[in-house]
């Protein structure tokens, strides 16, 4: 195989590289400051102080208070803790959960688990852009509702949900009922990319994940508004305000803190840049390649996410062809069990199976350049044409 000259990473919604400053911040804690923050001696107290500073940085990015942040091991764990923790602590108040049909598996599969354990779950539909109708939330709330969990931005197509509106509706409902309906959002994809403020969004719980925002893998956080009744998922020592047992992942925590700090400082600039780059990519593709469609909302979308269906081009084949040119992208479908499954998100938008299988996700990030995008625009048309030439579906050749 010929050597790859370029390596262009356009899969930032899957995971991001560590920001160099994040790694730099972590290194001392991988080298010298290895203490256990529960230890009473210097080795321990030193890292406890740093951990508290990191917590402050995470809180600050999303407009929360330091003591409202719980460190977990991933976005997945944050979602599990949010949903199961609320259900466990509020069993006596109700058992009904409202969510959407386009959530990440880390919410959907928890809901499935909970529905096998005494909960009733309502899955709200989305329109063809992937948007939830906030009136549907109002209608779905019953006396037994304890939780609404709606993701902030979708990982596959980037559509941003009207959380403020939904938050307002929940607040209104809460003013007329004895027990609060809690509002959780999976913000794993939105934090760092767009403005996320727990008070503006009126959410009670918010999940985020380190490796999606140029922080480390193996660390996540859950924001829990003061006063929310929630139970712990992992029992053991008295870590994290008794809400999450286990010796703290100090380098991870420090890294997440630093990543949040950088995001606080640079988000607006980065957002603009990403918007411009992905617009360039989209226009380039549109001009040069016929029979494509953009999935998701044309405007209410993450700045760097482009989900595009290339008619009659199977996504995984296109992914491979691009990868052989050094370009990393993603498909919505996952082939983990031997036979590929189409994206539940794209099907929820009303796409046919065929359309769903022809979709590709480009997700741009900090280190992408105009030159890289130009390169992709340059080589993509011929690749698409070649695969279309092989395809068993689509226009007659």
């Amino acid at each position, binding site marked *: *195989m010929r050597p790859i000259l370029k390596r262009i990473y356009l899969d930032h919604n899957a995971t991001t590289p560590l920001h160099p400053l994040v790694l730099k911040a972590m290194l001392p804690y991988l080298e010298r400051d290895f203490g256990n923050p529960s230890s009473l001696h210097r080795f321990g107290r030193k890292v406890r102080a740093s951990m508290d500073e990191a917590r402050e940085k995470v809180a600050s990015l999303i407009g929360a208070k330091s003591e409202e942040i719980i460190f977990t091991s991933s976005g997945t764990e944050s979602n599990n803790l949010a949903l199961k923790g609320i259900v466990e602590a509020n069993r006596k108040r109700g058992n009904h959960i409202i969510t959407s049909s386009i959530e990440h598996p880390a919410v959907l599969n928890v809901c499935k688990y909970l529905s096998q354990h005494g909960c009733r779950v309502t899955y709200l539909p989305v329109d063809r852009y992937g948007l939830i109708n906030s009136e549907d939330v109002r209608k779905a709330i019953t006396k037994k509702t304890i939780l609404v969990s709606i993701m902030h931005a979708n990982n596959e197509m980037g559509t941003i949900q009207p959380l403020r509106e939904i938050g307002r509706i929940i607040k209104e409902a809460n003013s007329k009922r004895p027990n609060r309906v809690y509002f959780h959002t999976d913000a794993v994809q939105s934090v760092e990319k767009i403005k996320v403020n727990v008070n503006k969004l009126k959410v009670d719980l918010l999940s985020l994940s380190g490796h999606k925002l140029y922080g480390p893998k193996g660390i996540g956080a859950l924001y829990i508004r003061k006063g929310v009744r929630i139970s712990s998922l992992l029992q053991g020592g008295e870590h994290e305000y008794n809400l999450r047992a286990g010796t703290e992942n100090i380098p991870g925590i420090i890294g997440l803190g630093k990543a949040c700090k950088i995001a606080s400082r640079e988000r607006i600039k980065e957002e603009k840049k990403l918007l411009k780059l992905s617009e360039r990519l989209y226009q380039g593709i549109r001009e040069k390649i016929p029979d494509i469609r953009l999935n998701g909302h044309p405007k209410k979308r993450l700045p760097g996410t482009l989900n595009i269906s290339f008619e009659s081009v199977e996504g995984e084949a296109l992914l491979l062809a691009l990868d052989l040119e050094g370009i990393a992208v993603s498909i919505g479908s996952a082939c983990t069990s031997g036979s*590929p499954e189409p994206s539940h998100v794209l099907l929820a938008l009303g796409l046919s199976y065929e359309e769903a299988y022809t979709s590709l996700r480009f997700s741009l990030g900090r280190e992408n350049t105009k030159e890289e995008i130009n390169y992709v625009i340059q080589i993509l048309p011929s690749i698409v044409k070649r695969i279309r030439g092989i395809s*068993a579906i689509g226009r007659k*050749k």
Partner: protein
Amino acid sequence: MVDYWSLYSKKVIDHFQYPRNVGEIKNPSGVGRVGSPVCGDIMELQIKVEKKRIKGKTEKIITDAKFRTFGCGAAIATSSMITEMVKGKKINEALKISNKAVAEALDGLPAIKMHCSALAEDALKAAIDDYLRRESSRTKKNANYHEQRRTNE
């Protein structure tokens, strides 16, 4: 640098990037179309069969094969490979080509991709089936040929 595409052999990549025998045959002897949009893989394999006398016997030889595939890289590579493998083979030899044999000819496939080679085998079988059915209806001058063909597709 280690080649992390070693999960796909060089041959798979080669047949994916430069697939052999893409397209249609004019007046094919048999056509097999398997898979569906729901499962995400569709293969259409066409064969040309000619009768030739070999060592005094009349043999049905596959003289040409073409394919079109909607599917992942492994699906395209196995399609390409199987069309290469059948060319020149007698019908009954071609029927013996297993998906394992196709995978081996490609220097192996990742376990998760073995179902793709099964699809290629299915497509070939379907094409040969189609040919045999056409043959039998032609020899019988059977009136309901079209009927039959449709149900077999």
